[in-house]
């Protein structure tokens, strides 16, 4: 009895070894570089299905095949505050068949000690979405413009509370950068962490907090319902979808921040594949179908490619490092 079991397991072991050898011998190679792309492309999304990044990426994946010629499959790799998905993309095979959404968190995670990854671990292809942060207050709030808010913070530091996402999240950094630009401290308008923009807005309306710094597109539904008013948007210039909302810059404060989504590939993909991808993605972002899908999802399209994109990434990287150091969010050193 025992003997037969052992022989079975031996058989199993032999089989395993065989497959092992087989897979090692034919794993690599047999990949011709001409005729790219010849099979479906996988797009890794580091955030959960149904979120802003996921919706934008799925919109891209739906239209991209028209310009690339092959199907694009979206794969959600969620968790770890985005670390898992970003890591998966950086470790994917650099053959052009793996692309992914890289979000603004790539400029933040390494500062918090979550990972060593930075934008330099990818081949940037194109920026596609940039949702600028807002300064939103209740409709019946006494603040009519940003100056009112600043005066209130200055006369009574710490009395006004803001919310929008978790501590150290993108909208928290929007607040920190804003406070820093007007010469105030982190604790002068303290942060109440929330599980996202929707609960924060609920708190805002219920009177639990006074300011929400989530993106303009996230607060827009309540703005149209007349329950909140937007004092400013943290963008370089007024957004085409919201021409009536003034920027911070117009009101004398030079601070911009947005939650952006870019398309990137692992480091070291062949140049000709990169060129093909960049061109197809560029055409997709300008495609009316894509524009309509993103507008419906409430995202602002912003297309930047090439050298200009590298400069953008470098600026974002440095800006975040500064803000997070000031806020005491940077770990180590």
């Amino acid at each position, binding site marked *: 009895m025992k003997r037969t079991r052992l022989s079975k397991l031996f058989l199993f072991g032999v089989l395993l070894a065989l497959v092992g050898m087989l897979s090692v011998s034919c794993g690599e190679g047999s990949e011709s570089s001409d005729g790219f792309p010849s099979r479906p492309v996988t797009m890794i999304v580091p955030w*959960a*299905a*149904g*979120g802003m990044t996921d919706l934008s990426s799925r919109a891209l994946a739906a239209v991209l095949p028209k310009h690339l010629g092959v199907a694009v499959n979206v*794969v*959600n*790799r*969620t*968790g*770890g*505050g985005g*670390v*898992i998905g970003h*890591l998966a993309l950086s470790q994917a095979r650099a053959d052009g068949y793996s692309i992914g959404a890289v979000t603004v968190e790539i400029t933040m995670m390494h500062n*918090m*000690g*979550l*990972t060593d990854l930075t934008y330099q671990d990818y081949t940037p292809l194109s920026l596609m979405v940039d949702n600028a942060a807002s300064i939103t207050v209740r409709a019946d709030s006494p603040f009519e413009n940003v100056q009112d808010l600043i005066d209130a913070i200055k006369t009574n530091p710490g009395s006004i*509370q803001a919310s929008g996402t*978790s*501590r*150290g*999240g993108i909208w928290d950094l929007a607040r920190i950068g804003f406070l820093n630009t007007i010469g105030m401290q982190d604790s002068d308008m*303290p*942060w*109440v*962490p*929330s*599980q996202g923009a*929707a609960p924060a807005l609920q*708190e805002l309306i*219920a009177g*639990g*907090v006074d300011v929400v710094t989530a993106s303009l597109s996230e607060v827009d539904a309540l703005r149209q319902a007349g329950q909140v008013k937007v004092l400013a948007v943290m963008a370089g210039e007024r957004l085409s979808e919201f021409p009536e909302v003034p920027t911070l810059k117009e009101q004398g404060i030079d601070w911009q921040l947005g939650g952006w989504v870019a398309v990137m590939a692992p480091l070291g993909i062949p140049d000709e594949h990169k060129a093909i991808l960049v061109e197809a993605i560029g055409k997709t972002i300008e495609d009316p179908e894509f524009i309509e899908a993103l507008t419906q999802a409430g995202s602002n399209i912003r297309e930047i490619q090439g050298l200009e994109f590298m400069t953008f990434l470098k600026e974002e990287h440095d800006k975040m490092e500064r803000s997070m150091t000031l806020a005491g*969010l940077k770990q180590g050193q």
Partner: protein
Amino acid sequence: MTDLFSFQGIMALVLGGFYGAIFGAIPGLTATLAVALFIPIAFFLDPGVALPAIIAISSVAIYAGDVGSTVARIPGTPASAAYFGQLFRLSRKEGPLYSLGISAMGSAVGGVIGALLLILTASLIVMVARQFSSFEYFWIAVLGLMAGVFASGGSALKSFASLLLGLLFATVGVDPTLGFPRFHFGSPQLMGGLNYIVAMIGLFGFSEVLNHVFKPDKDYEAELDTEGNARSFFIRPLLLVVKKKWLVLRSSLVGVMVGFLPGAGADIGSWVSSSIEKIKNKGKAEGEDDDEIILAGTSSNNAAVASAWIPALSLGLPGDTITAIVLGIFMMKGISPGPLLFDQQPGLITSLYLTFIISNIVLLPVFGYMSALMAKKLIKTPMPLLLSVVTALCIVGSYAINNDVYDVWIMAGMGFLAFFLKRGGFPLAQVVLGMVLGPILEQNFMVSAIKSRWDLTSFFDRPIAILLMVMTIIIIYLGVRYSGRMFQKTDIEELTED
């Protein structure tokens, strides 16, 4: 959203009922496992199809647990364990079709009562829940945890230990409020946290495979022919239900109440109800009141299946392990359960209600009759064969949830943990409860504390919060007072372990 009465919707109900009948009938394969193995499929179906299928699976599986008791004297699911002796005795005396008929009709009536109460109370609770802020959610989570400690039916200390394990697992990964990574030991996979659905597949599915490899179950022999006819399955039991309507109603209400408590669910519901009848009928001769005890247990466990959805839908808290899976599916689909669900997805809610009614009125009798006829064959399906397939589904299921092969390790680790927990008499559902409630508890505490600038008296400021706190204290008081007494006589620990 796919309509319930589309081809797909009806197929989901029929196939779900069939799948539930098979899993329920086979000892060792529980209703929770049936739903857990259905997860990877459910994730990729429209929620309008997936959720009705889950309702059909769980309703039929809880009933079908009685098929195992009838044919082989082995309860198919823990929810049947409370009265399996009576059921077996009755099927020897009056034929299996009659005894299964009682259990099917009792289940159907109990299920309908549970569903009606779900429909009525869920909307009421939602109205209250609209006023909830982080303070109330904190207290709700505390209430759920305390109920979970005492709802296991076994040792309160052991179920507290299980709950704490679940809470500990929930803290692994990046802290969702403060962004600080905890207990990741340098692994990016752990930094993503432990997905409780993956954990459930391991706890309830893979642990069965480990158990069997460790010590194979004795081969059970089907001893009975399924003689009898449709009349003894449908008519006579129905007459009994009508005669004993107060008993059925009482047991169903007990089932609803128990099912509502987080962590309790159908297993405990049937224990409480049949214990009540056993205590009431103490003077009677052995065997005389078998039909009453069966009726009490079976109506109670199906009522609990439905009422576990009340907190799940209205508050986003699971009533049992099955609704914990349902909440996971909601989250993966980007649907947030709770008051908002009723505004955003009224169609989904209506079709869920409808499914409960259909499952209990149509599916239960039909599949009940079918599985009573097939019982003998069903129960002879070799366990090793089934468990091989279960292993494959465990692997695929845990992988497909997040496309991460290393989740297979988490799954296996949880299976190994469950292997030990079961042998020590620690309940498994409490681990899941801790994993689900942990983040809710911690996030709402942190947000409330920071919002009120660490003025902890603010937790006792609001009327609903105080009410919830008082309820928590009552639960602790009742739990400490009665939990030991109620269950010592029935020796629940030993019996639910299988």
